[in-house]
């Protein structure tokens, strides 16, 4: 797809909270269609980095660009969502008392005003898109179930599905497998891998075996800075990584 060619460039970004540098001269880029995993000990700045990309936190210095023309630091959270950056938070929040289908329907791109939603109907193309996403997230058989009866893992997938409804170019996924069963983890790994290519996917995760199963490129953050990057094997052998994170 010709429009899906935007590269995310984070350059020399610094964020400090009361003197504590959550991000310290961070430089990182994500290629179109890439699957990137970010790991690092607690307080390494992973979540802060997500906050900066999505406009929730404003950096003290540096630049964040999406493609050649979009300066994310000048945009509001809603605008950033609109240009195609979707974020999945750690804790799944789906609409419990709506069905799976209805959750996806509300996430459809487009119609947002009250008067328009009053008359909104699902078009054939939208119907197909919802079916497609239901297939991707493996919830086709649960489409009429209320979201509240879904298992924890299914809720996570539903939320990823809701992100997909908005056709994001870049997906930011925060700890997707926390609290999942091994089977759910495996299913999530398949799901995320299937999304890379069509979308750029950035995953923040602690679970090493999970990271190994999905990532081609791994970035290790420590004290707001990239200390190593490369494939999992290379990263795991890096002496600094061993020192700060993986333990000896």
């Amino acid at each position: 797809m010709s429009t899906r060619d935007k590269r995310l460039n984070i350059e020399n970004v610094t964020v400090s909270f009361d003197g504590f540098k959550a991000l310290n001269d961070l430089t990182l880029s994500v290629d179109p269609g890439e699957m990137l995993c970010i790991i690092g000990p607690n307080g390494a700045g992973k979540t802060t980095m997500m906050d900066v990309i999505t406009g929730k936190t404003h950096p003290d210095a540096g630049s964040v660009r999406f493609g050649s023309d979009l300066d994310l630091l000048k945009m509001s959270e809603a605008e950033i969502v609109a240009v195609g950056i979707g974020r999945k938070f750690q804790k799944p929040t789906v609409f419990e008392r709506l069905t799976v289908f209805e959750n996806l329907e509300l996430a459809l791109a487009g119609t947002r005003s009250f008067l328009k939603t009053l008359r909104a109907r699902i078009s054939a193309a939208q119907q197909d898109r919802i079916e497609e996403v239901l297939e991707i997230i493996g919830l086709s058989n649960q489409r009429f179930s209320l979201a509240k009866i879904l298992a924890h893992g299914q809720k996570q997938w539903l939320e990823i599905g809701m992100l997909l409804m908005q056709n994001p170019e870049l997906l930011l996924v925060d700890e997707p497998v926390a609290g999942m069963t091994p089977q759910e983890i495996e299913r999530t790994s398949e799901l995320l891998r299937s999304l890379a290519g069509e979308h750029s996917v950035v995953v923040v995760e602690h679970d090493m075996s999970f990271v190994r199963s999905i990532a081609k490129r791994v970035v290790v953050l420590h004290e707001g800075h990239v200390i190593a990057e490369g494939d999992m094997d290379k990263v795991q052998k890096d002496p600094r990584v061993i020192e700060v994170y993986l333990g000896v």
Partner: protein
Amino acid sequence: MAQNNRESFTLWKPASGDRGGTWFLGVLALVAVAVPILNQLVPTSSAAHLSVFGITLIGKYLCYGMLALAIDLIWGYCGILSLGHAAFFSLGGYAMGMYLMRQIGRRGVYGDPILPDFMVFLNWKSLPWFWYGFNHFPFALVMMALVPGLLAFVFGWFAFRSRVTGVYFSIITQALTYAMMLAFFRNDMGFGGNNGFTDFKDILGFDLHADGTRVVLLVLTAVALAASYLACRYIVESRAGRVMHAIRDAESRTRFLGYPVESFKLWIFVFSAIVAGIAGALYVPQIGIINPSEFSPINSIEAVIWVAVGGRGTLYGAIVGAVLVNYAKTYLTGAFPEVWLFALGALFVLVTLFLPRGIIGLIPSRGQDK
């Protein structure tokens, strides 16, 4: 494909239907047909004859049902608990009352062709500007919806924009209706002070004391209730209704999806206030009086209890609750006047503890939302 798509439409929701709502509309239609027959065609001597007293009572219940419907729309579906909805009800009632006062004309005690009695009594020489136009029914009709709607708009605009939610919102709505009550108690507000408006003579030239007029008013109330019910049902079954659900369940998540949550709340709050206003407007000619006590905070709270007892989030449940609780009130305040408030309180506690889905929740529903 178009044909195909039409079929898949019904697919997105389990076919729960709206059995309760259909039953409700059926019963309402039955009332609208039976009341005129029982009053007009059955002879007065017969036991089956329905007196004007009975008609008034039924009319009152239906108006309360409409108020409960308005509350359920915002509380049951959007999670906004208004403890001041009687204010909108009363404003609609006052707008109707102003029209009815102007219709009295020379027949008042003081015989002034323009000024209502209370103004003559207060030695006012001319009609205040805000009374202009109320001698025309269409103007009054517009005001019955516009005034409550406008108040809801201004109030809601400030409250929702400032992200006032939950119990804080409930408390300021209580303050709103209380402030309105104090204001309307004042003689120099120009709304008859603590006596309010009463002693109405006729509406659109029809004698308000005639059985025929009362029957027509009751039928109109039933029609208005059915229409509001259908309008509310249309809203909650639209995608906007699902957004309201979403707001109730996870407000910030809805905002994150890009929905203008504040504007949704405002629209639905204004619509609800208008429904309440029309209910109040229909209430006044049937009951024959409107005074500031209608604004009192307890009225709004009682209305919320009707909704809780009936079962919130079903629309018709709220109406059923309003009718049942008020029937109990009519009976108990007659038979054991001192017991009523205790009974009401106990009812609320019991329903909250044992029937979270209200009386309607007792009826087994097929599928969905168990």
